[in-house]
C-alpha cells in the first residue's frame, strides 16, 4: 500500500521513524534484487537542522547495524524484515555514491531548487538570490514604497482606510502590518478598477420617524419591576438606542446597542420579552443597518482584494529589480505555477519514486496542492508515500499550516492510492511519567464537559476540544525514561482587587522568579526553559532573572543580540558614528570608553573636547579601512588590541568572536554602510556557545527543543490580537472572518464559530507543545481566576484550586537516566577520528622531490618601488610613449651589428604590423627612420652600442638579442625565480669556450631634459641592471661576476 501515515506524538522519536522508513524503502529494492536510487526518495522537513539530522540518522543507523549484531537486530525489528551485514554494506555504498543527490531537504530549499531550475519560465530575476535579513526588509520597503508611489494613491488610501475602518496616520505602517495577510491572500490576476470608499450609511430624519416616536413613548411599553418602576437595565438600553437612532448617526451604530441583538433574535432582554411596539419600530431599521454592515464588510473584502492584487504585482517587480526573493515569495511562485511532473523531474535531474513528509501538520494547503500530482504519480507507480506528522503539534496555523490536511485530504489521498492503517506513536523517549500523566489527564478530560454552562463559546470550544482529543493517544514513557524522576506543579499567580494588566504581569513575573530560584537551589546547573505565549514579557523576565541570578546565563529566544556585551555596544556605536557624525551620543560613548585607543584615537581625542583635526583624521582613516578591508579584518584588528582584553570581560571577548563571524558573513555580501551593519547586529539574536542555563522563549520557538525543567506562563493570555483573520482558498476571493459581535447580523455565525474552534484547537496544540518540552519538571503558572478556556481546562483536569503539586514521581535524575541508557551511541574500537595523530612517524626530513615555494621576481619589478604614480597609470599619453618603447625594442631586436647592415624603415614597420598601437602608420615609419638615423650617427649612445667591438685574438663573441631567461637563486635566504629577458648581451669567450666577460645593454626610451634628470632615471634603473647581472651570473656560472658590465643605452628617436 503506497500511503503510510505515522502520527508521532511529542518525543516519540519521529526522526528515527523517518530514518527507518528511508532505510526500509532502500532495503526493499535490495531484497527484490533491484537496487533503488536513494536520490529518488524525496524527504522534506521544516528546518535545515532537521534535514541534516535525518541524513545523519540514516547513515548512522545503517553503519551501526553493519558493525553490531545487536544494533542490526534492533533495526531489523523496526523495519520488519531480516537484515544482513551485507545488506547494510550495499545500502551504505549506494547512499555514499549518491550523497550529493539525496533529496533530503527543507521544504524551503526544495522550492528554491525548483525556482532556480525554472527561473526563466516563472519570471524570477536572472541570477536571483535569497533575500534574508535586511534583504527581506528592503524588499518589503521597496514594495510598499511602490504602492504608495502609485498614481492612484487616492485608491490606495481609500482601500486601506476601508479595510482599517478609519483613517490611519501612517499608511506605510498600516500596509506593513497588513503585508503578511496580503502575502497570503490569493488575489485575482485581473487588475481591479480604481477603488472608492463606500459612502457611510447614515440615518435620515424621515426613516427614523416611527422609531423616534415609539422610543419617545417608551413609558407606555417599557418593562416594569414588580414595584412598577421601569427596569433600570431597560432604561439604559433604550438611552443607548435613542443615541444610535439619531439623524446623521451611522446606521451600523444601531448594531452596537446590546438590546438590538436581542431584538434580532426575538429573545428576552434582562428576562423581559421585547415589547412588540419596540420590535415593530426597530426591525425595519435593523434590516437596513444589517444591510449597511454587509456593505461595509463586502467593501472591506474588496479592499483587501484590491490591495493584495497590487501588493503582489509590486512585490514581484521589486523582487525582480533587486534580484532577490524571500523563501515565501519563492514558495508562492512555485506553488502557483502548474508545473508538469515530467518537466520538473527533467529539470531537477531526478525522478522521484518515493516521498517522505516530516512535520506534515505544518504543511500549507498550497504546498499540499503542489505535491498532490507528485504523490499521485508516485502512488500510482507503486512508490511509497510516508507522512509523518502530529496534528497535536500544529501550531503554525497563522503561518498557513493546515492541520486539517492530516485528516480529510490525507484520507482522500489514501482512498485514491491505497493506504495502510496509520501508526500511532505515543511512547515518549523524552518525558518523565509525571509529565506524561499530567499531559494525559489534561487532554483526556477534553472528552467530557468542562466549561461552565454560561461560557459564551461553550459549544464550539468543547466541540473543538473533543475533536482535538479524538486523536489523542495515551502517552507512556519508553523504557529509556521509565525511571526518570518528575514533578508537575500548577501555580496560581494572584491578582489583587482592581489589578490592571500590569499588576497581573507583575504577579506572573514574581512567581516565575520564585520557581527559577527554587529550581536553581535544587540544582545550580539545571537547564530551564521558560516558555511564554507571546513575546512582550520576555525582556522584563530576562532582565529580572539576570538581576536575581547573575551567575546564571540567561538568554532569550534564539539567544540574545550581541549587544548584551558592552564592548559590542561600543563598537556598534562607533560604526554608527562613522556614518553619522552628528551622532554625538555615540561619539561620547566611544571616546569616553577605555576602548577608544583600540580604534586608533590618540589620547588627545576625548569625549569632552571639541572635534579636532586629529579626530576627523582618525575617523576618515577608519572609514577607509572598513571600505577597503571589510568589516571582519577591521573589527578583528580592534578586538585584538590590548585595550580590549584589558577592559572587556570574558563575556565581551566571546561575544566579540561571534561578532567577527557576523562580519565575515557580511563581507561576503559586498560593501555596506557601517551603520547598516550595526543595525543588523543589534537585531540578530545569537546564542552563546554552550547554550544558556535559563532560556526564555515563546512556545512556538521551543518546538523541537527539550528542557529538564519547563515553566509555562501566560497560557491564559487572551489570544487573538493578530488582527483580522483572512480565509483564502485557491480560486476563491478572500473572506474576512467578522468579529463575533458582527457575525449574527452578517449571517456568518458559522464561520465565526468555526474560527473559534480552529483557534482553540491551535491553543490546545500550543499547550501540548509547551507541556511536552519538559523532561522532568513542569511548572504551569496561571493567573488566578483566569477565565481563559485553557486555564479552566487545566484547573479542571488537574483538579487545582490552589498552588499544588499535581504529579510527582521519584526516580533517577536526568543525567543518571541518560547514562543508564547510553545515549552516546555505539562505541567503536577505533580512535576518535577527530583526534587522529596526523604527524605519525614518517620521514621527518621532507622535500627531496619537492622544493619549497619560491618567490618570483622580474628585473623590471625591482625598479617599481616608490610611490603609486596615478597619472602614469591613467593618462594615455604615457601609453603612447610605452608603445613607442615597445616598437623600438622590437626593431632593435632585429639589428645585430651596424657593420652587418641595417634593415630599412619599411621592413621594420612591416615586421611589427601585428603589434597593437596607437601610432599611425606614418608615425611609425617616421619613428623607424629616426631610429635608423640615430643608429647610423656616430657619437650617439645607440651607435656605440650597435658597433661591433674589436676582438682580441682567439676571442669570440656571442650576441644575445631579446633572450629570455629564468634562473633560480637565493635571495635573502630564500629561493627566488628571477625571470625576464635581456635586451642585448655580448658574451666573450676564449678559444676554449671559457667565458671571459659579458656586457649587458638595456635600451631605454625615457626622455630626459637635463643631466640631473638622467642621473635620477639611472638611479631608478640601477636595481634592474643589478638583477640582469645576477641572472647572467647564474646562467654562466664560470663567469667571474666582476667581469659582467651592464649599462643603459638611451634611445632618443
Amino acid at each position, binding site marked *: 500500500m503506497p500511503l503510510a501515515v505515522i502520527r508521532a506524538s511529542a518525543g516519540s522519536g519521529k526522526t528515527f521513524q523517518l530514518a527507518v522508513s528511508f532505510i526500509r524503502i532502500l532495503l526493499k529494492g535490495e531484497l527484490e534484487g533491484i537496487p533503488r536510487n536513494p536520490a529518488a526518495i524525496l524527504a522534506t522537513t521544516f528546518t535545515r537542522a532537521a534535514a541534516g539530522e535525518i541524513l545523519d540518522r540514516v547513515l548512522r543507523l545503517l*553503519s551501526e547495524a553493519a558493525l553490531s549484531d545487536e544494533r542490526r537486530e534492533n533495526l531489523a525489528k523496526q523495519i520488519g524484515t531480516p537484515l544482513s551485514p551485507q545488506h547494510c554494506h550495499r545500502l551504505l555504498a549506494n547512499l555514499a555514491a549518491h550523497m550529493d543527490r539525496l533529496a533530503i531537504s527543507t521544504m524551503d530549499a526544495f522550492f528554491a531548487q525548483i525556482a532556480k531550475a525554472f527561473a526563466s519560465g516563472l519570471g524570477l530575476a536572472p541570477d536571483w538570490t535569497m533575500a534574508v535579513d535586511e534583504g527581506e526588509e528592503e524588499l518589503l520597503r521597496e514594495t510598499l514604497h511602490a504602492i504608495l508611489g502609485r498614481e492612484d494613491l487616492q485608491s490606495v488610501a481609500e482601500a486601506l482606510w476601508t479595510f482599517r475602518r478609519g483613517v490611519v496616520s501612517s499608511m506605510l505602517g498600516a500596509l506593513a502590518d497588513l503585508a503578511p495577510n496580503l502575502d497570503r491572500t490569493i488575489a485575482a490576476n485581473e487588475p481591479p478598477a480604481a477603488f472608492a470608499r463606500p459612502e457611510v450609511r447614515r440615518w435620515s430624519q424621515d426613516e427614523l420617524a416611527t422609531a423616534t416616536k415609539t422610543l419617545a413613548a417608551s413609558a407606555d411599553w417599557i418593562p416594569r419591576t414588580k414595584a412598577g418602576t421601569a427596569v433600570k437595565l431597560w432604561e439604559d438600553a433604550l438611552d443607548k438606542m435613542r443615541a444610535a437612532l439619531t439623524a446623521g448617526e451611522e446606521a451600523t451604530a444601531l448594531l452596537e446597542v446590546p438590546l438590538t441583538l436581542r431584538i434580532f433574535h426575538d429573545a428576552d432582554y434582562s428576562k423581559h420579552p421585547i415589547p412588540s411596539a419596540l420590535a415593530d419600530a426597530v426591525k425595519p431599521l435593523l434590516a437596513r443597518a444589517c444591510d449597511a454592515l454587509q456593505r461595509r464588510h463586502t467593501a472591506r473584502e474588496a479592499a483587501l482584494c484590491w490591495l493584495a492584487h497590487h501588493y503582489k504585482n509590486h512585490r514581484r517587480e521589486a523582487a525582480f529589480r533587486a534580484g532577490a526573493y524571500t523563501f515565501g515569495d519563492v514558495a508562492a511562485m512555485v506553488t502557483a505555477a502548474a508545473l508538469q511532473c515530467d518537466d520538473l523531474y*527533467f529539470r531537477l535531474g531526478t525522478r522521484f519514486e518515493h516521498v517522505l513528509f516530516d512535520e506534515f501538520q505544518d504543511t500549507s494547503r498550497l504546498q499540499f496542492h503542489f505535491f498532490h500530482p507528485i504523490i499521485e504519480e508516485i502512488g500510482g507507480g507503486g512508490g511509497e508515500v510516508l507522512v509523518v506528522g502530529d496534528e497535536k503539534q500544529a501550531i503554525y496555523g497563522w503561518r498557513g499550516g493546515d492541520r486539517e490536511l492530516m485528516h480529510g485530504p490525507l484520507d482522500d489521498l489514501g482512498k485514491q492510492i491505497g493506504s495502510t492503517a496509520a501508526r500511532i506513536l505515543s511512547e515518549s523517549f523524552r518525558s518523565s511519567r509525571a509529565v506524561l500523566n499530567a499531559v494525559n489527564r489534561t487532554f483526556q478530560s477534553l472528552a467530557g464537559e468542562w466549561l461552565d454552562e454560561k461560557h459564551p463559546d461553550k459549544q464550539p470550544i468543547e466541540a473543538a476540544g473533543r475533536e482535538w482529543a479524538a486523536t489523542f493517544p495515551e502517552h507512556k514513557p519508553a523504557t529509556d525514561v521509565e525511571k526518570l524522576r518528575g514533578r508537575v506543579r500548577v501555580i496560581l499567580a494572584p491578582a489583587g482587587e482592581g489589578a490592571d494588566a500590569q499588576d497581573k504581569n507583575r504577579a506572573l513575573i514574581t512567581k516565575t522568579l520564585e520557581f527559577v530560584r527554587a529550581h536553581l537551589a535544587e540544582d545550580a546547573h539545571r537547564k530551564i526553559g521558560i516558555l511564554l505565549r507571546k513575546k512582550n514579557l520576555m525582556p522584563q523576565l530576562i532582565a529580572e532573572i539576570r538581576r536575581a541570578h547573575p551567575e546564571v546565563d540567561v538568554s532569550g529566544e534564539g539567544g540574545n543580540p550581541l549587544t548584551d556585551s558592552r564592548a559590542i555596544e561600543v563598537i556598534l556605536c562607533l560604526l554608527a558614528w562613522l556614518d553619522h557624525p552628528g551622532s554625538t551620543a555615540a561619539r561620547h560613548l566611544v571616546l569616553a570608553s577605555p576602548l577608544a585607543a583600540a580604534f586608533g584615537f590618540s589620547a588627545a581625542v576625548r569625549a569632552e573636547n571639541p572635534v579636532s583635526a586629529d579626530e576627523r583624521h582618525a575617523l576618515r582613516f577608519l572609514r577607509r579601512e572598513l571600505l577597503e578591508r571589510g568589516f571582519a579584518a577591521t573589527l578583528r584588528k580592534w578586538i585584538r588590541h590590548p585595550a580590549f582584553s584589558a577592559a572587556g*570581560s*570574558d563575556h565581551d571577548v566571546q561575544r566579540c568572536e561571534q561578532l567577527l563571524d557576523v562580519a565575515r558573513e557580511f563581507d561576503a555580501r559586498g560593501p555596506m554602510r557601517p551603520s547598516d551593519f550595526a543595525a543588523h547586529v543589534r537585531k540578530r539574536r545569537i546564542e552563546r556557545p554552550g547554550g544558556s542555563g535559563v532560556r526564555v522563549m515563546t512556545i512556538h520557538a521551543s518546538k523541537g527543543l527539550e528542557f529538564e525543567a519547563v515553566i509555562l506562563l501566560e497560557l491564559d493570555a487572551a489570544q487573538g490580537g493578530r488582527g483580522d483573520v483572512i480565509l483564502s482558498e485557491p480560486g476563491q476571493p478572500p473572506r474576512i472572518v467578522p468579529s463575533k459581535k458582527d457575525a449574527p447580523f452578517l449571517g456568518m455565525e458559522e464561520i465565526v464559530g468555526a474560527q473559534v474552534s480552529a483557534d482553540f484547537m491551535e491553543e490546545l496544540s500550543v499547550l501540548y507543545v509547551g507541556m511536552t518540552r519538559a523532561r522532568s519538571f513542569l511548572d504551569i503558572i496561571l493567573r488566578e481566576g483566569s477565565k481563559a478556556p485553557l486555564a479552566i481546562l487545566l484547573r479542571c483536569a488537574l483538579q487545582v484550586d490552589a498552588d499544588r503539586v499535581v504529579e510527582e514521581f521519584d526516580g533517577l535524575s536526568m543525567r543518571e537516566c541518560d547514562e543508564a541508557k547510553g545515549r552516546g551511541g555505539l562505541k567503536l574500537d577505533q580512535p576518535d577520528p577527530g583526534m587522529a595523530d596526523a604527524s605519525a612517524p614518517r620521514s621527518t626530513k621532507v622535500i627531496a622531490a619537492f622544493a619549497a615555494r619560491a618567490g618570483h621576481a622580474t628585473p623590471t619589478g625591482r625598479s617599481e618601488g616608490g610611490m603609486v604614480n596615478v597619472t602614469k597609470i591613467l593618462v594615455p599619453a604615457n601609453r603612447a610613449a610605452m608603445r613607442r618603447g615597445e616598437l623600438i625594442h622590437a626593431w632593435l631586436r632585429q639589428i645585430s651589428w651596424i657593420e652587418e647592415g641595417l634593415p630599412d624603415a619599411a621592413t621594420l614597420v612591416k615586421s611589427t604590423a601585428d603589434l597593437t598601437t596607437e601610432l599611425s602608420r606614418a608615425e611609425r615609419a617616421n619613428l623607424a627612420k629616426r631610429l635608423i638615423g640615430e643608429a647610423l650617427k656616430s657619437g650617439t649612445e645607440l651607435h656605440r652600442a650597435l658597433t661591433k667591438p674589436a676582438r682580441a685574438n682567439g676571442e669570440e663573441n656571442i650576441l644575445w638579442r631579446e633572450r629570455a631567461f629564468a634562473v633560480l637563486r637565493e635571495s635573502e635566504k630564500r629561493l627566488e625565480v628571477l625571470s625576464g629577458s635581456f635586451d642585448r648581451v655580448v658574451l666573450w669567450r676564449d678559444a676554449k669556450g671559457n667565458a671571459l666577460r659579458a656586457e649587458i645593454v638595456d635600451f631605454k626610451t625615457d626622455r630626459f631634459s637635463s643631466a640631473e634628470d638622467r642621473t635620477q632615471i639611472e638611479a631608478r634603473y640601477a636595481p634592474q641592471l643589478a638583477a640582469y647581472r645576477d641572472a647572467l651570473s647564474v646562467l654562466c656560472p664560470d663567469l667571474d661576476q666582476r667581469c659582467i658590465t651592464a649599462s643603459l643605452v638611451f634611445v632618443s628617436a
Partner: protein
Amino acid sequence: MRVFLPWTSPLLPAVAARMIAECPAESSFSRDADLSGWLLVVRGGSAQRRLLAALAMAAQRAGRALIPPRIVMQGSLDDAIFASDASVAGLLAQRLAWTVAVQRVEPERIGKIWTMPGGRGGIANLASVLDRTWRALSTAGVDFTGAFSELAKIAPDSAEFEQERWDSLQYLLDEYRAVLGEWGLTDPSARRARLAATSRASAELRVALIGVVELPPELILLLRTVPAKPLIFIHAPESEADGFDEWGRLDAPFWAKRPCRFSDGEIHVVRGVREQAARCADLIRDWKKAGLTGAGITIAVPESAAISALLGGLADAHIEARSAEGLSASRTAALQLLAQVADFLDRPGGAPPTYTSVAALARHPDLAAIARGSTGRLDEYFNAHLPLRIDPEQPAPGSNEERIAEFLTRLKSFAEIRNAHFSDDVTRLLLRIYKHHQLPRASDAGRALHGALSAVRATLDEFERLPRQSLAELPVAELLRILVEIAGQTEIPEPEQPDAVELAGWLEAASDDAPALIVTSVVEGALPEGAPAEPLLLDSLRERLGLPCRASRFARDKYTLHTVCMSRREHGRIALLAPRRTAEGLPARPSRLLLGAQDGNDLARRLISLTTEPHTPNVPIHAAAGLVPPEPDPEKMRAFRTFSVTSFRSYIRSPRLFYFKNILRLGAQDDSADELEPGPFGTAIHAVLQRFGEHHLNAQGVDDPAAIEAEVKIFLDEYMQREFGPHALPPVRAQSRALAARLSVFAKHQAALFAEGWQIASVEKKRSLVVPFPIPGGPQDVKLKGRIDRIDWHPDGKWRVIDYKTSSQGVTPDKAHFGARSGEWKDLQLPLYVKLLPELGDIPGGPISSDAVALVYFNLPPKDEDAGITEAFSAEKIPVAWEKAQQIVAEICSGAGCREIGEVADNEDPAFLALCGLNGLPTTTEED
C-alpha cells in the same frame, strides 16, 4: 604522445627534469637548454609559476642555461598558438554587445527566453546571464540551435515546449554577433572556430599539456592545428592509462568507479569553520616542528567563504599566512567610488540624483575634498525633507539647504561623464581624486589603488577601441556599471611573503606542489564541487555537450585529491579536514571523495566517524562586569542654568538621560526614516495651525468648519510642498492625506470654538520665552524657557493656554501630569507656562490674570470623538508644580542630580541606552 609520470611524486619537477634532459644541446659548445619553441599548457596560475621554477632548477642542476618556454593556462591557448588579434572582442565588448543586443530585440522575444514582470528592469541582468551562458556554451563548439538539437535528443518530450526559447536565444545570438560586427569586432569563439577550420600553426611550435585533465571540445580543435604532435604529460602511472583519453582528459566513468583511498589518519573531522582554522594552526605548528617552513605549506580552500575565517584563525595563532586569491578590485575604494558615481548618474528622465547615492558619495573617504564634511548636513537635510531624490530648490541663503545645493553642484561637475567622451571623462574624474594621493607602492592602500586604476585603465582601453557611436546606445550609468563590473573582476595579488603559509582555491592549491598540503572543507558541495548551476544549461545537456558537469567535476576532484595525496604520502604531509558544518554554518554532508574506496565495515566506520560531532569543550563564562558606562560630571550640572519647561518631564522619567541629552546636549542622528515620525508629524500640524492662528489673531473667526478646513488644507499643501516637494519618499506623499484628516478634525472643533466666541490671542513665536526662575536657597540666576502653542481669549474675560496634542490618543492635562496610580508628578509643562505668561508682553485684552487662565490641551487624534479642548489642569496644583520644578533645579545645580537611570524607552537611540548602562536587554516588539 602521452607520457605517464607516476603520482607517487610531484608532477612538475618530473616534467621539468624530463624536458631539460630531452632538450637537445645544439652543439657541445653551447650549454643552452633552449625551450623557447615550446608552449607548455598548465591548469592554473600557481602551476605556471611552479613549473618555471622547476625548469630553472632542473636546468641549473644539469648545468645548462635555460631559455624558458612559454607557459600558459588553457584559457589563453588561442592567443598562444596564433598571434593575438585586435579585432577579437574582449570581455567588455562582449558584455556591452549583449546588453545592446538585448535592448534592441523586441520585448516579446525576450519574454520567450525569460518572463519579465514589469518592463525591462532586469535586462542588464539578463544580458550578463546570456553573456556567461554563451561563453560557456561556445566552448562546446555549438551555438544555441546546435545545443537545442542535442537537448531534443535527451528530452524529446520537452523539446516542443523549449523550442521557442532556444530559437529566441539563437536570434539574440545573431543580434549579438551583428552588434559586434557593427563595431568591427568578432566573437572570440568565432575566431577560434575559424582558426581551427582554416589555419595551421607554425611548424616549429611544440606544445605540451601538463596535467591538463579537462579540455573543452573547442580547444581540442584548436590543438589539432598544431602540426607537431603535442606531448601530453599525465600524472598517473601507466597502469591507469584507461582513465585518460588521447588528450589526457579524464574518463569520468573510469574515475567514478576507481577506488581512491584516504586513511583515517589523514582525515580530521572538525565542527565548523572556526575549528577548521584551529586545526590548521595545530597541524602547521606540528609540521614546523618537524622542519617544514611556511613556504612549504599550502592550504586548499574549496569554500571561498571560509578564507576570511581561516586567515583570522591562523593570525590568532601567530602563523603568517597569505591568500593567493588576492584582493578583488571591486572591493577597492576607487571602484566603489565609480560604482557610487554610477548610482548618482542613474537618473531616468533627467530626475535629480537619489538621496542614497548622494549620501554614499558624501561618505566616500576619497571624496572628502568635495564633500567637505557634508555627511552631517545631509543627515539633517534628510530628516527635514525625507527626500527620495535630492534637489534643493531656491534654498534660503546661509541655510543648510544652500550648503547641500552647493555640495550637489560640486558633485555634478565632478561626476560629469558624457557618452561620447566616456573614457576621457572617467579618467579625468579619477585623476582629480587620486592624482595627489601619495601612497607607497608597497603599502596595502598603494597596491589596491595601483591595481584598481590599472584595471580601470585596461578596461577603458577596451572602451576606446569601440567606435564612439556604439556607446551612445546605453545610458552613462549603465556604461559605468559595466566598466566597474569588468574592471572589478581583476584580482590584485597580495605581496609575496617569504615564509607565509599560502591559502589558495582548490584547483590552484592542487597544482601547487608544496610538500605539505591541508585540504579544508572536504564536504559534499565544496569538495567535490557541486554541479555548475546555469539557468539555461541543464546538467544533462552540459554532459552531452562535453561541458563541465556533475560527473566531470566529480571525476576531476576525485582524481585531483587522489594525486595530491599520493604524491605527498611518501615525502610530504597531507591532511584533509572534514567539517560537520559548511562555512555558512549549515549542516554538511560527508564527501563522496572520502567514501569511495571504503566498503563493508570500513565504510560503516568511516561514516560513523564523519557523522560524529567532535567534542568541543564548553568554556564556562562568567558575566564579569567589564566595561562601565560613563558617570555624570557634577561640574557640568552645576554650570547648567537654563531649563526648558518641557525638559522636566524628561528629568522625572530619567535623570541620567536628562544629563546626556539636556546638559551635555548629545544627540543621535541617522537617515533611516521612511516617513514622518510622530515628532515631525506633529511639527507639521503645529506649523499649519500656527499659520492658521496668525491669520485669525484677535479676530472673530468664521464658525464654518468647511471654510476652516479649506483654509488649513491650503496651508498644509503649501507646507508639504515647501518642506518635501515632489521628490520626497512615497510614504510621505501618502502621509499628507493623514495630516489632512487630522486637520479636518481640527476644523470641526475650531469652528465650534469660534462659535462659542473664543478668539485667538497669541500664537507660538519663533523665539522662546525666557523668564528668570530663582531658586529659594539656591542659585538665583536660573532661567526658564518655553514656547506656548496658543492662547485664546473669551470676551467674558476667560483665558486658555493651549497646547496642541497630536498623538494618536487624546489625553487630559491631569493624566499627562500625574502618574495613574502613584499620583506622582510626570510632567510640569502646563503649570510652568503660567510662569512664562508675563514675558508675552502686551496682548490685546491682556494682561492675562493668572486666576482667569485655564491650562488645556487641544487634542487632535485621528478619532473625531477624542478630539477637542480638554478640561483644564487642576488650578490648585499649579504652585505645587512650581515647587517641584524648583526642587529639581536645585538638585541638578547642586551637582547631586542626574544619577538615577529611571525609565528609558526601549526605542531610545542605542547610544543613549548604552550611556545609561541599559544595553544588552533585547527589546522585543516584533510580532511572532
